[in-house]
């Protein structure tokens, strides 16, 4: 079945450093969504990318969708302690389920 892997699994950064998580699928993706889950919280939708090569920005966050639509990345510039949490990529292919990536846990050291 479809697998969506994320690397790294864990990342510790000093506050102010940059952070990137990568999402790789074994199959072509219809779209890619990114969610953030704070510690003890629930996944919250951040953004969706649909087009090949698409790039979107939200303040310090930059999201990219690969040209082949099989990978994506989330880059955070100058991390802050509020960025702590687990970041998931996911695909909604319209088949009544969201396939989530394995997640990247980010810890930001003040």
């Amino acid at each position, binding site marked *: 079945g479809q697998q969506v892997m994320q690397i790294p699994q864990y990342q510790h950064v000093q506050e102010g450093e940059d952070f990137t998580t990568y999402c790789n699928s074994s199959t072509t993706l219809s*779209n890619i969504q990114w969610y953030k889950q704070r510690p003890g919280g*629930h996944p919250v939708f951040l953004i969706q990318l649909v087009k090949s090569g698409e790039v979107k920005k939200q303040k310090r966050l930059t999201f990219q969708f690969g040209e082949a639509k099989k990978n994506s990345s989330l880059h955070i510039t100058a991390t802050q302690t509020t960025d702590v949490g687990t970041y998931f990529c996911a695909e909604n292919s319209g088949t009544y*389920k*969201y396939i989530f990536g394995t997640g990247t846990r980010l810890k930001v050291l003040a």
Partner: protein
Amino acid sequence: DTAVSQTPKYLVTQMGNDKSIKCEQNLGHDTMYWYKQDSKKFLKIMFSYNNKELIINETVPNRFSPKSPDKAHLNLHINSLELGDSAVYFCASSPGGRNTEAFFGQGTRLTVV
């Protein structure tokens, strides 16, 4: 005001017991889901419902029985709880269709002792 609400937030129970988790959404969405999140944070689909009809049952043991009395509610009943059922269970909803986002409830942390 909560869009997707689950109860209870925490559930501690003994092996062999039966328990239920309730979920309600006030977003008017047609599709609802149950996800299981294990200790490694993997989010795995268990069930999805569309307009009260079961669409996906992702090889979940028969001890888990979802019920959707109407499209705003999706409950999960678990029989004969086992240690391996300990996890966080998330209810979610979406408008359905591609390119729509999922809205999650706050989760139910189930601990089986």
